[in-house]
């Protein structure tokens, strides 16, 4: 057991560090201090009243006052190993009976040091590391890393590579939203939705396995295009997926929206106002549920999203039901985009032909000495990227996925920071969960759809 010699750090009042209970899992100042030990403006901050700019909606602050006799409330751990925290998220919640007063998300239980590992891998290997961050949409991570590298390299991709990437990224959005539908249904009590959601997702994963060779963590979108061309006959596979998914979405809509229990747990719960969402830098379905039409595919188009017409879905109340409706309709929009991608897929080569960046096709290596040299150089030392820094952002199913890449002219990135949407969206959890019941907290966590791989990086 890697016994770190547990030096009990400065435990705040109320918890004596020598007690037999305090052991390796005690996280000191990161935890939620008991009510007696926290200053009032700290309480106000965590209760969210400092943040609540307009008093316009929801349960106003007066009926949940801040002064509580200390033994009245109870601090519990919705800890790292919990069925409904979507991975290893630990929420310390202060409850008055069943009402959630203060919440503090404690993260880091899946910290993999990926940004440190990225500084050790060449650009060619970089997408294998980045693809394991958001494991519900790995291709989007690879896409943002490749776009950033290509912007630094200043190379222009052939049209087929751009459209293949759009095809895969939209299929990935569909599989991620289907996965969300499954786990959200499960969290709110409908296990049939879990089985339906995973059944549809297997169709998409089957297509990915056929094109990229793997169900997840594909390493298919690389700087300079994609690893291989689409398998022939891919059009009918995609058509099978699109027909199946679009025909069944109506049933899932009736299955969930038709249930009064589902309605009761989703409508009006976890509400967030527009300026709170902006202030907390929340992006994606959370920001759009408050009515702000901000979708990077529309406002800052990348790849070829400006040649495809689709709708940006926005909500009205900013509660869980809006986010559910947004994600459900975004699957329909993805289906619509994919039909257009099917017709407009241009022929041509699937990666840039610049010999310095992409390795030559395998067969040519045996024929020409020069191709062998390029192959050898790219796979051992990697290609050099000119010195500079760049920030590129795309719209992942959870929000704005950005990649800040600094290169010092060598073949390894000097600094890679991935702006993970779930990491920032988690900050709006305490504001949304405040005042609700614990059951509402479960539904709200599931509606934020955090993926702990990209939160902890």
């Amino acid at each position, binding site marked *: *057991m890697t016994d*770190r010699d547990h030096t009990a750090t400065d435990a705040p009042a109320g918890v004596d560090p020598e007690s037999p209970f305090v052991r390796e899992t005690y996280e000191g100042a990161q935890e939620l201090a008991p009510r007696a030990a926290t200053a009032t403006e700290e309480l106000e901050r965590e209760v969210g009243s400092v943040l609540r700019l307009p008093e316009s909606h929801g349960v106003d602050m007066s009926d949940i006052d801040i002064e509580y006799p200390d033994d009245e409330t109870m601090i519990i751990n919705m800890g790292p190993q919990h069925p409904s925290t979507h991975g290893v998220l630990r929420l310390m919640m202060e409850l008055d009976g069943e009402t959630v007063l203060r919440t503090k998300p404690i993260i880091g239980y899946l910290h*993999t040091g990926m940004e440190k590992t990225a500084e050790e891998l060449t650009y060619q290997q970089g997408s294998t590391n980045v693809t394991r961050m958001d*494991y519900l949409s790995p291709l989007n991570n690879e896409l943002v890393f490749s776009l950033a590298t290509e912007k630094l390299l200043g190379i222009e991709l052939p049209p087929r590579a751009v459209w293949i990437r759009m095809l895969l990224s939209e299929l990935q959005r569909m599989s991620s939203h289907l996965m969300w539908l499954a786990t959200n249904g499960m969290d709110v009590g409908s296990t049939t939705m879990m089985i339906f959601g*995973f059944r549809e997702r297997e169709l998409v994963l089957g297509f990915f396995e056929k094109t990229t060779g793997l169900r997840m963590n594909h390493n298919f979108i690389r700087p300079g295009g994609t690893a291989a061309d689409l398998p022939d006959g891919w059009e009918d596979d995609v058509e099978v997926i699109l027909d199946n998914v679009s025909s069944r979405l109506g049933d899932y809509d009736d299955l969930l929206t038709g249930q009064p229990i589902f309605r009761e747990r989703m409508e009006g719960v976890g509400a967030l106002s527009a300026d709170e969402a902006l202030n907390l830098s929340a992006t994606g379905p959370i920001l759009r549920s408050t009515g702000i039409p901000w979708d990077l595919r529309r406002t800052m188009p990348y790849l070829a999203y400006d040649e495809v017409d689709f709708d940006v879905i926005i909500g009205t109340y900013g509660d869980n039901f809006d986010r559910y409706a947004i994600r459900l309709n975004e699957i329909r929009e993805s289906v619509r985009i994919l039909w257009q991608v099917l017709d407009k897929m241009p022929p041509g080569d699937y990666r840039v032909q610049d010999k310095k960046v992409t390795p030559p096709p395998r067969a040519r290596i045996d024929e020409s000495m020069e191709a062998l040299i390029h192959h050898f150089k790219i796979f051992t030392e990697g290609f050099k990227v000119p010195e500079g820094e760049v920030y590129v952002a795309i719209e992942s199913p959870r929000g704005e996925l950005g990649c800040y890449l600094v290169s010092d002219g060598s073949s390894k990135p000097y600094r890679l920071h991935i702006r993970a949407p779930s990491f920032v969206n988690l900050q709006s959890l305490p504001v949304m969960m405040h005042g609700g019941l614990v059951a509402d907290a479960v539904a709200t966590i599931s509606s934020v759809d955090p993926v702990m791989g990209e939160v902890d990086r």
Partner: protein
Amino acid sequence: MGLEDLQHNFLTGRVEDLVKWARRNSVWPVTFGLACCAIEMMSVGAADFDISRFGMEVFRASPRQADLMIVAGRVSQKMAPVLRQVYDQMMEPKWVISMGVCASTGGMFNNYAIVQGVDQVVPVDVYAPGCPPSPEMLLHAILTLHEKIRTGEITRRRAPQAQRPEELAGWVPERPDAIRLGTPR
């Protein structure tokens, strides 16, 4: 016509085989999904690769009602004590499948943040390779574990191995010399 040609029947069956058969066919995993392998573990639990065919359809949330811990994903330094605590709180007899290379050996993340192999924290019975192991690989690991339970010893008295000093760790299963997957004898 002695009893020796009576292979399988109720009269000559041993209690130990009965208990092993019962344990083998109702192993309930505790939900210990960490990273990408957890998604594959969930799809193993879902309709396409259904593990309820092997009696494991219920993923128990609390370790008190679980027999098997599938460590699905990379174990970070901050998570190791939590993993150990959940393992200690599981009831005997308990088994551990280390799913994926990150759990088995730290995988591609050979750095400061990841525990290089979960067997430094808990005793592991079956290692499932792959990143992430496809559902079939996880099913193969589960079948291997079932085979181990079937051939393992449960009642033979043994000298207690050297456990963690301050308190006895879980039950360390016997290591049968060879695990054959074919049809049971």
